[in-house]
C-alpha cells in the first residue's frame, strides 16, 4: 500500500504521466481513500500548470544597455 509520503514523492511522475497502468492503479487507490492526498495532488498539479505564467524578475534597462554596449565593443 502506498503511503502519503509515496504519493508526494511520486507526484511529479504521476502528473507528467510517466506511470505504468499498475503504478497508476496503486496511486489512484490511495487517492480514493485519502482526502489529504487528493487535495495535495490537485493543488500540485495546478501549481505546475500555472508555472508557465510565472514572470521572472526582469533586468533593468541599464543592465540590458550595458550588455549591448559590451557586445558591440567586442564586435568591432
Amino acid at each position: 500500500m502506498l503511503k502519503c509520503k509515496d504519493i508526494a514523492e511520486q507526484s511529479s511522475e504521476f502528473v507528467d504521466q510517466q506511470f505504468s497502468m499498475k503504478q497508476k492503479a496503486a496511486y489512484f487507490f490511495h487517492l480514493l481513500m485519502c482526502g489529504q492526498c487528493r487535495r495535495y495532488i490537485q493543488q500540485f498539479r495546478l501549481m505546475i500548470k500555472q508555472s508557465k505564467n510565472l514572470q521572472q524578475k526582469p533586468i533593468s534597462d541599464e543592465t540590458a544597455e550595458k550588455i549591448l554596449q559590451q557586445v558591440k565593443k567586442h564586435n568591432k
Partner: protein
Amino acid sequence: MKLPFISNPTLFIAADLIYTTAQPITAKPQYMISPQEFDEATLSALMQQDDLAFKKLVKRYHPMLLALANSIVGEAFGEEVVQDAWISIYQNLPGFQRKSSLKTWVYRITSNKAISRLRREKKHINFSSLQPESYDRETDCFDASGHWASSQAKWEMDQPDAQLFTQELQDCINHVLSQLPPLQQAIFMMNDVEGESSSDTCNNLEITASNMRVLLHRARFKLYSHINHFQETGEC
C-alpha cells in the same frame, strides 16, 4: 482485507481527478503563449543586429541564461559566461537558421559556453555549491508512519481557473527560486516555466533524464511547500 466504506462524493471527486489527470499538461495552450515571444518583425530586426531588438532579447532571456550558466559553472563564473554567450549570440544572429526556436538556440549557445568554461576552470569551481541539498524539509512534512504531518491547506482561489500566482506570491516564488541549488532552479525554470521539452532541458544542462526528474521534483515540492505556507499565513 475489508475495504472501508466509500461514500459517493468521494467517488465523484476521484472520477474528476481521473478525468483531469488524463490530460497531459506539457502542451502550452494557445492563450498562455507569453507576450514576450518574438514576432516576425522583431525576429528580422534581430537578424540585422538592431539595437532595440537586441535589448529586448537580452531583457527577455538574461535571467534564464544566468540560471542556466550558474547551474553548470557556479555563480562565480556565471555572469562572465553569459556575457560571453551574448557576444556569440549577437555575432551569430545574422546567420540564425530558424531550424529551432530562437529560445532553444539561445539556450544552446549559452550551455555550450558554460560547458567549455567548466572544462577550462575545473580546478577553480567549487562543486559543493552545485550539489543538491538534503531532503530534510520534505521528510519533515510526514510523520513516522508516512502520513502528512499536518493537514493540507486549501488554497484560496476565487475560481478554479483563477491566477494562483498573484504579484505577491510571484515575488515570493522568485525569492524561493533564487535560494534553490542552481541546478534545481535551472531545471524548474527551463522545464516548467519556459516549457522546454525534457530532452532539451537535459541536453542544455548536460544531465541524465533520471537525474533531471529527481531534481525537478525536489524543486516543485519545495515551491509547493512555500505556496502552502503562503496560503496559510500570507507570508513568504
